[in-house]
C-alpha cells in the first residue's frame, strides 16, 4: 500500500537525457504537451523492459499529470509493461490468418521450450511470451515479433533455428518477406505461362 513511500531511490530516467526530453517535448505544440506521454513511456519501456512506479511518477512530473493519469493511459495499451519482459520478448500473433498458418502450434512449441506461458517472463529474464493480435502481416503468417522485429512465415524449422540463435545470443536481423505484387514480377505474363487462372470453385 505504501509503495509510494518506499520507492527505492533510483536516478531519474530522463535526468541525464536532456536532449532526448527536449526533442520529445518539442515534437508537439505547447498546448499539446500531454501528447508526449506515449513517447516518454516508450523510451522507458524500451530501455528498462517495463515502466516501473518510479518512472511513472517521473513522467507524471514532467507532464504535470498525476501518476494515476499516467497509469490509466499506460494500462490501456498492450506494449507497455508493469513488470519486466524478457531480453527476448516473444510476441505471437494469435489472430485468424496466423492461426490458420499454425500460430497455436507455434505458441505451444515456444511455451514448452521456454517454460513460460502467455504473459510470463522466465526467472533469468531471458524469455517472455505474449500472445498478441493481428500484426498486419497476415500474408506472411505465422508471425513472431521478437522485441521490435517481425519474423515472418515462421515455419517449424525456422522457429527452431530462431530459438537456438536466441539461446546462443546471436539472433540475426529478420529476413524480409514481401508477398503479392512484389513476388509476381509480372502477373499478366505469369498467367500466360499457364499458372492458375480463374477456374473457380473448390480445387
Amino acid at each position: 500500500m505504501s509503495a509510494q513511500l518506499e520507492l527505492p531511490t533510483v536516478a531519474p530516467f530522463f535526468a541525464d537525457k536532456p536532449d532526448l526530453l527536449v526533442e520529445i517535448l518539442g515534437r508537439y505544440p505547447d498546448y499539446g504537451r500531454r501528447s508526449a506521454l506515449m513517447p516518454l513511456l516508450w523510451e522507458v519501456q524500451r530501455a528498462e523492459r517495463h515502466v516501473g512506479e518510479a518512472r511513472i511518477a517521473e513522467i507524471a512530473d514532467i507532464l504535470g499529470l498525476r501518476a494515476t493519469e499516467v497509469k490509466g493511459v499506460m494500462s490501456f495499451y498492450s506494449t507497455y509493461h508493469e513488470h519486466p519482459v524478457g531480453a527476448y520478448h516473444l510476441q505471437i500473433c494469435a489472430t485468424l490468418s496466423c492461426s490458420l498458418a499454425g500460430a497455436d502450434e507455434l505458441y505451444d512449441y515456444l511455451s514448452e521450450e521456454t517454460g513460460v506461458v502467455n504473459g510470463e517472463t522466465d526467472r533469468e529474464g531471458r524469455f517472455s511470451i505474449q500472445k498478441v493480435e493481428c500484426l498486419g502481416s497476415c500474408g506472411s503468417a505465422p508471425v513472431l515479433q521478437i522485441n521490435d522485429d517481425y519474423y515472418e512465415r515462421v515455419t517449424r524449422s525456422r522457429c527452431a533455428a530462431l530459438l537456438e540463435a536466441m539461446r546462443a545470443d546471436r539472433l540475426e536481423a529478420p529476413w524480409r518477406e514481401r508477398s503479392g505484387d512484389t513476388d509476381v514480377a509480372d502477373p499478366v505474363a505469369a498467367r500466360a505461362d499457364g499458372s492458375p487462372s480463374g477456374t473457380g470453385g473448390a480445387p
Partner: protein
Amino acid sequence: MSDAVADRPKPIVSRFDPRFEVTLYRHVGVAGSHTLPYYREHGGYEAAKRALTTSPSAVIDEVKTSGLRGRGGAGFPTGIKWSFMPPADERQRFIVCNADESEPGSFKDRYFMEDDPHQVIEGMIIAGFAIGATRGVLYVRGEYYLAYERLREAIAACHAEGILGRGVLGSSFDFDIILHRGAGAYICGEETALMNSFEGLRANPRLKPPFPAQAGVYGLPSTINNVETFASVVHIMAKGGAWYAAMGTDDSKGTKLYQVSGPVARPGVYELPMGATFRELIFDLAGGPTMPAKAFIPGGSSTPMLPWTDETLDLPMDYGSMAKAGTMLGTGGVIVIPEAKCMVDAIYNIVRFYAHESCGKCTPCREGVATWLPKMYQKLLAGLGTREDLVVMEDMVRNMRGTAFCPLADACAMPVQASFKYFRHEYEHLVDHGEPLHARRDWWSA
C-alpha cells in the same frame, strides 16, 4: 442509348486489361525504394509541386472528379470529406494520417510505410494544402517499428531538402508532420479514439458530432484519412481525376490494394482496379486455395463472410456490389477459410480479438463483446453448449448491432451473424455431439 454513351471507353475493371498499370504499389519490394533519392528519381514530389501551383479548391475538385473513396474501411468520398472543413480562421488545422492498420486480414499500409514512405508524405502535403492545414499528424501503430523508423528517416530527409517545413518545395505553403507511435490497441484506428490517443488520453472514442472537421485533434479542425487514401491522392494529382475515374465501377472508382491471406498459393497484397472479381484476386493473382475452401471474408475480419461459391467468387469487388451481397468491402483484406477449419473456432478467434480490443467504455460492447460472447463460445467449444445457447447467442449479437458507442461492437457482431447464416449446421453439430464437425488439427508447416 445515344452514340456518345456507346463510344465512351469501357471502364477498366480487370488487372488484365492492358490499359491497367500498377501505380500505388509499383515501388514496394524494390531495394532502396524508401529513400528520398529513389523516390525523386521516379517522379516523386512532382505531384505535390503541381498541386501547390494550383489552389486548394482546385485540388479538392480534382479529388472529387476522381471519385476516390476513403480506403480506411468505410469508403467515404474523400473530396467531399475535405470540403467539410470549416472556412479558414486563425486556428491551427490538422491533416491526420491513420496508419494504425490493425483490422485482422489487413496489411497493405505497412508495406507502403516501409518501402514507400515518401508517397504517404507527399499525399499528406497535398491534402494539407487542400484543407489549409499546416500541420500533419501521422499516427502509426506501435508494432510497426520498421515503418516508424523509415518514416522518421523520410521526414528528416524531407526537412533537409525543403520538402517539409517552411515553404514546401519552394512554394509559400508551410507544412510539417508530427510522427506519433501507437502502443498496441486496435481501437486507436477509430478516428476519434486515435485523436484521444494522440493527445495522451485513454483511447476511448468520442461522441460524434462534433465531427473531426469541427473539433478534431486538440479540439481543432481536422481531417483524417487512411494511408492508402493519401497515396491515391498523389497519383490523382499526377495523372488527373479523370484518369483515376476511368477505372472501376459506377460507385467505386480507381485502383485499390487487396490483401489475401489464409491457405492460398501466393498470399499477399495485390493492386487491382475496383470492380475486379474475387476470382481474379484469389485465383489469377494469389494462385487459388491450397486446400478446399468453404468461405471467405471479403474485407477484413469485421466484414461478414461469404460462402465459397461460383456466384460469390464472381462478385465484383466494389462498395455497391458488396452492400448488395450483404457484406462490405472494408479494407479489402480477404481471408480464405478452408473447409477443414471448424467455423465455430474460426469465429471464436475473431470474437476473442474484438473482446480483447473492446475499450470498455459502453455497456453493449463491454458486456456483449468483451464478456458474454467469448464466454458462450468457450462453452460451445468445450462441448458444453446447447441448442438454446445458440438462440441466446443469435439474440445477443442482434442486440449488439447499432447499440454501442462506436462501430466496434458491430464489427464483432457481423461476422458472428454471417457464420450463423451460412454455417449454423456447424454450430448445431458442435452442440449436438459435443465435438466440432472439423476436429482440431495441426496447421503449422514444417
